[in-house]
């Protein structure tokens, strides 16, 4: 049960200061555009928070690019909008914290081979819901999500989109409950990313073979037997004796996955 409200609240309230700058090559005005500063929730996605920024920069670019899809990069790394913002920060700036986080905005040369297209927010919602379903399949064989009504799905999405903690967790807590007589999930939905952004997703049980609770230390030795690594998520280093079940219940992103960076 995800009942440690203090932890949940701290995670939910995490925001990142971001500074958007327009790509120098795309500026078509004599006057230099001001950089755009904004605080974005770590748990949200970029397409949900950049409307105002886009309006601001549209004045400074050539008209022929105005209808193009906007994208961002950090130090030349295009940012994938379908990852949570906080995870992207951890991935690219985890070792070298840099605040505010300075991103470059582009309106042309969309890197279609790296990024997914995102014409509107419905696409984000569809991707989000499918990820939640995948996580539920791993945790409860998909029974919770399929038992939910359409309005519950909507509430989950709107809670995330509008930054409403109570609205979101009223539904999400059902996804975090252990199902049936099992103590804990069937598998832990977890994605572990290397520093270059490659993703590893394995079937990982919250318990050891002997039935005891699995902790992070055991997971690391299981996955990286050759050298000890540190795992980071939500901007913090995970203590080695944290149980995996508790971690999944409390430190999962809203899409119910644990996005963890290796460092």
């Amino acid at each position, binding site marked *: 049960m995800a009942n440690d409200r203090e932890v949940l609240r701290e995670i939910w309230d995490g925001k990142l200061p971001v500074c958007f700058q327009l790509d120098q090559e795309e500026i078509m005005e004599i006057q230099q555009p001001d950089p755009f500063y904004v605080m974005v929730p770590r748990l949200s996605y970029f397409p949900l928070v950049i409307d105002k920024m886009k309006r601001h920069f549209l004045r400074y670019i050539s008209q022929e690019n105005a209808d193009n899809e906007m994208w961002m990069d950090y130090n030349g790394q295009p940012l994938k909008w379908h990852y949570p913002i906080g995870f992207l920060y951890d991935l690219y700036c985890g070792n070298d914290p840099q605040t505010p986080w300075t991103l470059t905005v582009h309106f042309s040369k969309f890197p279609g081979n790296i990024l997914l297209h995102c014409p509107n927010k419905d696409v984000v919602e569809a991707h989000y819901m499918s990820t939640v379903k995948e996580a539920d399949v791993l945790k409860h064989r998909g029974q919770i999500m399929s038992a939910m009504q359409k309005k519950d799905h909507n509430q989950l999405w709107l809670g995330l989109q509008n930054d409403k903690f109570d609205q979101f967790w009223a539904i999400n807590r059902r996804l975090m409950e252990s199902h049936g007589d099992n103590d804990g999930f069937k598998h832990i939905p977890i994605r572990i990313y290397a520093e270059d952004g490659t993703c590893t997703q394995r079937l990982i049980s919250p318990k050891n073979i002997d039935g005891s609770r699995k902790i992070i230390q055991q997971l690391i030795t299981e996955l990286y037997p050759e050298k000890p690594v540190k795992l980071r998520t939500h901007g*913090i280093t995970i203590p080695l004796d944290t149980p995996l079940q508790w971690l999944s219940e409390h430190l999962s992103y809203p899409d119910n996955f644990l996005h963890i960076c290796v460092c």
Partner: protein
Amino acid sequence: MEGGEWRNNIINQLRGRNKRETFAFQDIFTFQSRLFDNVNTLKNENLQLTLVNERIRFSNTESVSSGGGAVNEKIQALEQKILSQQEELTSLHRRRGESSQQIINLNAKVHDLEKNLQAKDIIISENTALIASLRAEIQMYENNMTELQGLNQVLRDEHQALQIAFAAIEDKLRKAQDENRSLVERLIKYKAKDADKMNEENEHFLKSSNPTAFLINTFGRVSFGKKSDKVKKELEEAAREGGSRSSGSGGSDDKIMDSLPYYATSLPNKVALRFDAHDGEVNAVKWSPTDRIVATGGADRKVKLWDVSKLGTSENRGTLVGSNAGVMSVDFDSTGAFIVGASNDFASRVWTVGDQRLRQRSSSETLLPP
């Protein structure tokens, strides 16, 4: 709630993170965004003010460039006037534009209305045509109706005439039937008379078949009615005289001749009619004095009436019952209305011939000595 070192560690790290990343920048960013908005609005305002300023300056330079003095003032006033006139002109132009627009709109409306009107006219003409055709139809149907009514009247008249004719014919028929009936009655009467006459003739013939009475009969035949009777009597007398005269030769013959009244008698030698009257023997027979009816009495305890008016046939007119033993004798009264029968049961009975009912029974038991 689960707890432990790791949890405190996580909480502390999270708090540290939020302090570092969030709270440090929160206020600055809020302030920045407010400033950003302010800058934007001010920029817009500035732009507008510049525009206004530019316009004012333009008008100023124009006014300044013109010459000085009273002429200047005049010119200025005139220019002012021109300006105002121009403004008026522009406003008028605008108004004209508006009104022309209005006119166009109205024209369009008029056009529409005309179109509507035309459509309605078409509809009306169609409807009038329809009405005319319907009226013609009505006229036709009315004509038909009057025709049919006339026809009906004619038929009714005919019917009436036929009924009257029918009544007249029926009357005629009734009259004819009445006439027919009376004729039939008369015919029957004549027939009856004929029959009577025939009977009479028959009788006469029978009488005349007796050789002794032949002469008389021939005479009788010659002379008719009561005259013949008279003649007959005279002849009888004459014959008796002649007889008595001739009887002088034989006394016994004379006696016989004297003792015998000179009645013509004849013996029936031919059966005119034969019929079975009774079961058993027939004991009595009697002619009715008035009608051609014969009453017979038999051992079967019945008295029967026979109509023998038609030659060669007999018709049973009735059976008078009531006797308890064989009827031995019957007789009519003088009018032929009653008939009396004597029976072996020691009683005599009287019947009426008309309705053939027992009228009187007189037992002889009281008459006879015990």
